[in-house]
């Protein structure tokens, strides 16, 4: 009962033979070898599996691969351009916005969507926007700081210095 799905992933067309029941997260990881997308829960809570579908952050464990037919998908692997880190990646590094790193790809992908909608989010808006991304290591504080810093970079301003 397998069928072929054709997906545009990180700018390249990829096809995979999948069962209708295959979750997009599994197909990305197991069939397309894009293991930067992680799976941390089964109820659509933790957001570790977040990718961009047509520019919007979506939990890829709560989507069938067949539903993504014809969509433009961006995973964490496709975020850096020409070897340059995306400002969010850079900011997570600068601000110590990660520890074990497992939630980080999903967290960053959600933040990409947030900053596309809101170029200068407040701390409260950031915390609300990432409530579907769980992090058990950082306590979120440095993640918030990283997203603020990246927002500043993307706006073309000098990133704010970390409050000590």
């Amino acid at each position, binding site marked *: 009962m397998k069928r072929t799905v054709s997906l545009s992933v990180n700018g390249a067309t990829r096809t995979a033979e999948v*069962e209708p*029941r*295959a979750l997009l997260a*599994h197909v990305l*990881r*197991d069939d397309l*070898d*894009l*293991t*930067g*997308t*992680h*799976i*941390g*829960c*089964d*109820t659509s*809570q*933790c957001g*570790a599996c977040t990718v961009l579908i047509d520019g919007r952050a979506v939990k890829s464990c709560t989507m069938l691969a067949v539903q993504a037919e014809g969509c433009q998908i961006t*995973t*964490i*692997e496709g*975020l*850096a351009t020409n070897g340059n*880190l995306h400002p969010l*990646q850079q900011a*997570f*590094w*600068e601000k*110590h916005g*990660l*520890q*074990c*790193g*497992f*939630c*980080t*790809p999903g967290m*960053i992908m959600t933040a990409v969507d947030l900053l596309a909608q809101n170029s200068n989010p407040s*701390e409260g808006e*950031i*915390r*609300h926007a*990432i*409530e579907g*991304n*769980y*992090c*058990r*290591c*950082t*306590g*979120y*504080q*440095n*993640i*918030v700081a990283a997203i603020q810093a990246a927002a500043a970079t993307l706006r073309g301003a000098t990133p704010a210095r970390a409050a000590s």
Partner: protein
Amino acid sequence: MPTLFGSGIKRREDPRLITGRATYTDDVKLPGLIYLAILRSPYAHAKLGKVDTKAAKAAPGVLAVYAGADITDRVVPVPCAWNVPNCNLKTPPHPLLAHQKVRYVGDGVAMVIAESRAAARDALDLIEVDYEPLKAVTDPERACQQGAPQLHADVPNNLAFTWVVAGGNADEAFAKAEAKVSLRIVQQRLLPTAMEPRAAVASYNAGTGQLTLWATSQNPHIHRFLCSVMLKIPEHRVRVIAPEVGGGFGSKIPCYADEVLACLASMDLGRPVKWTEDRSENYKATIHGRDHVEYVEMCGTRDGKITGLRTRVYAGLGGYASTAAPGVPTILHGLMYSGAYTIPNIHGTVHGVYTTATPVDAYRGAGRPEATYLIERLVDTLAREIGMDPVEVRRKNFIPKDAFPYTVATGLTYDSGNYHGTLDKALGMLDYGAFRAEQEKARQQGRYLGVGVSSYAEICGLGPSQVAGAVGFGGGLYDSAVVRVYPTGMVRVYIGTKPHGQGEETTFAQIVADEFGYPVESVEIVHGDTESTPQGWGTYGSRTTAVGGTAVKLAAQRVKEKAKKVAAHLLEANEADLEWKDDAWVVRGSPDKRKSFAEAALMANVAWNLPAGVEPGLEATAFFDPTNFVYPFGTHLCTVEVNPETGQVTVLRYIAVDDCGPPINPMIVEGQVHGGVIQGIGEALQEMAVYDAEGQLLTGTMMDYAVPKASQMPKIETAHTVTPSPVNPLGVKGVGETGTIASVAAVVNAVCDALAPLGIKHIDKPLTPARVWAAIQQAKGNGGGR
């Protein structure tokens, strides 16, 4: 050149993590990979009848199906590795797959190996199991009463052990005391919830007899040791690789049946086998934390001197004794009953009790959060009883800073401390006096503000191996490092600990780079592969820096001593005449005669011209076994507002002042505090594993277990004082667990302080709105209130 030690440089592990290029266990792919799935008991307690695997075996893609009876004779049960002495410890066998009986929801019953994840999962539904349900009991206090359902034939009343700690004469102290307070405290079960669920990839090579296991492990050497025992294969043929590990918080210390089953399957089928847990499986089959029911008392004088502490603790162990389980509520808990104070008389009794629930083991803080919580709740309760400010009671009882090393009544000797220092700093950051005034004003307006203080001392840097042996820990507690310098001078350091988020690839490189006068980029830290790293004992108990970091320092020093000999030889100078300046040795008085560390390293490696008696090569191994534990300390303050109408608690400010000795990387230290504090606030306000009367885990997914979200958590204000430890040459202590150890009591004390006008003395955590509201209703009904 400024030293790297003390500098908050960016982490060197991050580039691979932020680009999705890191390899976690489930990312490992091997040719011919097949998949394992485990059927888990839906009953908390049942006799196991026939396990019919016929249909599953016949299903498409299925390669093999095993039930407990199929493997019992081939493997050794999962060992308990902390055999705490003098407590009549009983650790009945824990079969890899249940045999004759299941003892918790999630106990493994059968396993399927198939060509795909889906085929393995599908086949689980085809296994028919006859269960004869038995009564469940998940409350540790009830489980050891007469008439409770019995889990193990040889463990009457489910009592795994009764452990006693005593110092001074507590009974006498209580008999004579001017003031006494008591509490019944429930320290609820918690689900560690490392974001990465557990996983294993096992690959056995029948030709060489070598077994390689990639696993989500905080301590690959312990896994190698235990796998070898369970599978009865020689340890030197087992290689354990813990690649990137997505958080552990203690839950990836134990060696579980599941990883070993993957090995067994690979040995039988001759192909690599992968097993990956779902989150709901993780919540049932990976260890839980805490689970105490405690009766605790404190006594003192009316002017605030604490004279005694007594406890009776029922510590739930779950269905079996997990790897380190017996040590957690005893050695890591009961021995800390003095907290930060000079309590002369202590008596504690801890009953370890089997219950029909998931096994409990070390969870971030492991025993010390429970100890700090009960002590700090009692200190506040005593303060209220005698009408004294809780801050004053703490001041009055702190171990004075000039009294270290200080031996507390439980027998531990604390290394160093300045408890007044962190308290004063925290109070200053808050402006305690101003808050009290604001609180008073708010009370008059019918608002409920509160401030909670939590001063702690904790034991970490585990620890001297001799002590480990004496307290029944089944391994050593030293750690190790190999520093290897290549001809170009580049350095790789192989360590026995296993960082999984704590940033030691950076902090350890800072130590070594400083030693050699290098930029940090010249040093790589290698960890997690038992094939390349020296024997070590892993990352837990905030031991990695104090013990493993010291080993790194010592190995680097040894390398440097040898390089110095080579440099002196090349400079045709006496070693004694060499001075170390930035990155090179300089002949005293002749500043142009210099040899850098890199130049010496090259010569040591090519060996064209070495001093007599010096071997070629440049590397050194160090094993460091500390002489004592280290004892970080601090004071955390929390202010809250409680909405009396809904019971909702809002954290207004959270201030953490910790002292973990000199921070190698302050940015990383602060990150550890943030994470620990939020985990503790989660414990205080919202996290709880709930079982029903039948032993079903009702919080079986993240839909019901409230892992803290960004939108629910406050900002943390951090500060530090620095009191070096005399126990290791770096002076460092540990900071991985201080957050959870301190914060739980700070939050609960704040809420109880806020609700004091209603006559509320204690509410059991987590302080969910429902619980706080119920307590307020009850207080009002009881004629409490203003």
